């Protein structure tokens, strides 16, 4: 009863029960631990991944729902921190404890895929589902703008 899907471009067959949240398959079965557990109720966004390019909360997505689809995690941005958002996150020193940042980055990446010139209101709308308990919000906002500018220049 395995579930076949793609994660970060690689085909996997997950053996977890179909109702297992994608989050725990990604973390404990596939072993990609960048995606985090924060609430288990899609309230905090720490578990945000892309499903066929759209941001979803993996804690509330049963693995059965991703059969045949393509999942991308924070590890897909780049391993060597060359993605414009990673560059901007480093430039602005966004993370504090860092626990929520994978989710923040994946929400921001989904935003910039759709919208290369996000306004403050666009950023508010795209990022309000991601809680940062350390309050890195001012820097997240600034870093998204920097990354957008860099992507538009490139």
């Amino acid at each position, binding site marked *: 009863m395995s579930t076949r899907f793609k994660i970060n471009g690689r085909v996997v067959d997950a053996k977890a029960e179909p109702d297992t*949240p994608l989050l725990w398959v990604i973390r404990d079965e596939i072993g990609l631990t960048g995606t*985090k*557990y924060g609430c288990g109720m899609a309230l905090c966004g720490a578990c945000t991944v892309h499903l066929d390019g759209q941001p979803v909360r993996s804690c509330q997505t049963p693995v059965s729902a991703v059969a045949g689809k393509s999942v991308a995690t*924070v590890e897909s941005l*780049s391993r060597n921190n060359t993605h414009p958002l*990673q560059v901007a996150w480093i430039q602005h020193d966004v993370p504090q*404890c860092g626990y929520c*940042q994978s989710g923040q980055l994946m929400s921001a990446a989904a935003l910039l895929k759709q919208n290369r010139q996000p306004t403050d209101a666009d950023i508010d*709308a795209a990022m309000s589902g991601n809680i940062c308990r350390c309050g890195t919000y001012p820097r997240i906002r600034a870093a998204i703008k920097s990354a957008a500018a860099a992507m538009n220049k490139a």
Partner: protein
Amino acid sequence: MTTSSPTSSPTSSARLTRRGFLQASGVAGSGLLLGVSLPGAVGDAAAAGLLHTPNAWVHIADDNTITLLSARSEMGQGVYTSMPMLIAEELNVDIRSIQVAIAPPNQKLYGNALLGGPQLTGGSTSVRDGWEKLRVAGAQVRMMLISAAAQKWNIPESQLRAENGRVLGPKGRKATYGQLAAAASKLPVPDKVVLKDPKDFRIVGKATRRLDTPAKVNGTAEFGIDVKLPGMVYASLEQCPVIGGTVKSFDASKAKAMPGVIDVVQIPDGVAIVADTWWHAKKAREGLAVVWDEGPGAALTHTAMLDSTRGGLASGKVLPLKAVGDADAEIAKASKVIRAEYTMPLLSHSPLEPMNFTAHFHDNRVDLVGPTQWQDAAAGTVAKTLGVPPENVTLRTTFLGGGFGRRIDIDFIIQAAQISKAVNKPVKLLWTREDDMTHDFYRPQSVHQLAAAIGPDGKPTAMTFRMSSQSVTGRVFGLPAEVQDPLMTEAAVAAYEVPASRHDIVKHDAGLRVGYWRSVSHALNAFANETFIDELAVSAGKDPLAYRLSLLGSQPRFATVLKLAADKAGWGTPAPAGRFRGIALMEGYDTYMAQVAEISVDKGEVTVHKVTVAADLGRMVNPDTVEAQIQSSIVFGLTAALFGEITLAQGRVEQTNFHQYRLLRLNESPAISITLVPSTEKPGGIGEPATALIGPAVGNAVFAATGKRLRKMPFTPENIASA
């Protein structure tokens, strides 16, 4: 491996320190010191005997890989960068070329003198405690490397200098620290060092990019939840819904039949399901039936607790803090007296990474890995609880997914160790969010009663301050009833000069376990003091800024930050339409700070648009981290001021997740403008003070907007309506 110290001249305490470190950390064999989360191969180097430890803070490998230790946990506040910056300044190495490791438990070497000795990260103490100690550590090693070069080349030390990871001598002589480290590590650690004049600092005081950021943007940073040990199993723990309750009996037959379940074990705090995956362990809790003895906590409600806390004020069990003149007599005979009561709710810490720890009990040993703010208590208590010799407990600290004081407590670490012992396997215990929110050590409630006699000029001639709250220090460190809890007195005495005053503290146990929460009693006392002074200003018909300034006398650091924040915020000029300003001032952790909040109120909903901060925290290590910590504290404090409240019914915490315990989001977070006062004063702490000021600044702004005086947090529409 150069681990053995010469047996001659063993009297220097510095030398004992080094030997103690080597023994405690087991450099030679276990690789225990390797709390290394950044890329690097310190572990391999240690195992291969290529790593040298001139003192407890600096490891140098033959290949010139330099590892500096942080004895404080990285929970977002930047110690992973600021602690090595202090060492690197005197060691003369490029901060970008070094690696960082978190120190192993060793209270003697790594204790926090500002907190009385424990190896504890908290109280905004890391920089203040490390300011001199870490620079001395760097300077010691620099001198030892120079001595080693002098001996090697037979050149006087005076002709050598250490620069950028190398020792340089006349005629182009040079050697890397790595080439000298083996010899240097055999030399005595110098007792006397000369530290740089601060004007010569090249690292300290300069905005420096954090060393942990790269790992935190690509998923490689290791938090406790990410730990994996060979053969590890996963645990989820059912605890009594009433904190303090115990297991009467349980039926695990259904749970044991659920997928992946390996065992179900009872420990003192509850019943643990152990399974092949965490999801299986968590799911199987649905099949677990536990009968609890709920204990005395079952009767608790937050309203009854607040009433009993208020009752504490009149109980007579008062601990005097400060008394000048006869304030009571002055108030009794005054023609104008202002009195007010302020109350604060219970709060949860809610770091985003729920409590977790990984433990491996084996061969009368325990290996612990995870996120903690208090290494020696964790290791020591696990040793005692499991009956294992203390030297048989190792602990490696991962990154902390937030601390805020919650990870000073070690309940979850003991639980993980007990479960591992019960199943004889390495176990990762991970709490759910619901476990975390309902089994916190909560920020205590408080009730303050303040009174002031007002003179003809509108200024207070006398004031009294009495605060009742629960002592966290009493629980954590076991203070006797008659001894003042120093953390309850924080910011209790405000800057304002009043001819007669009396400040009293009441330690009142309201029955629920309480913990240190970011800024501790600063948040409680500053809310009372800074709201009260605003009330006095209004009553006197004075501008809140001018009124405060008129009471500051000759206290330039207070006056400077107050005026600066007001100027930058445009105080005295009209605010944008519909917006109103409030101001607040405090000293905490040796940091002087003022904040101006600019807000609007729409149908009882407060929106904070802008916060302007001025701070004088003396010398800084990493000014960019200072700004980040102020931003962070404002969001944390604003979350509490606008939304924060934990309630209890029948002894059960009613909030279980973020839909009921709301945290501020990006779209709700204000613009924050920060001005740091250049200062040569001793360093102040910055991880917490801004947390305490945002509440009163916003509350005072709400008064300006609505005429409603908020004396009770949180500032919800209901509480504003009933104000």
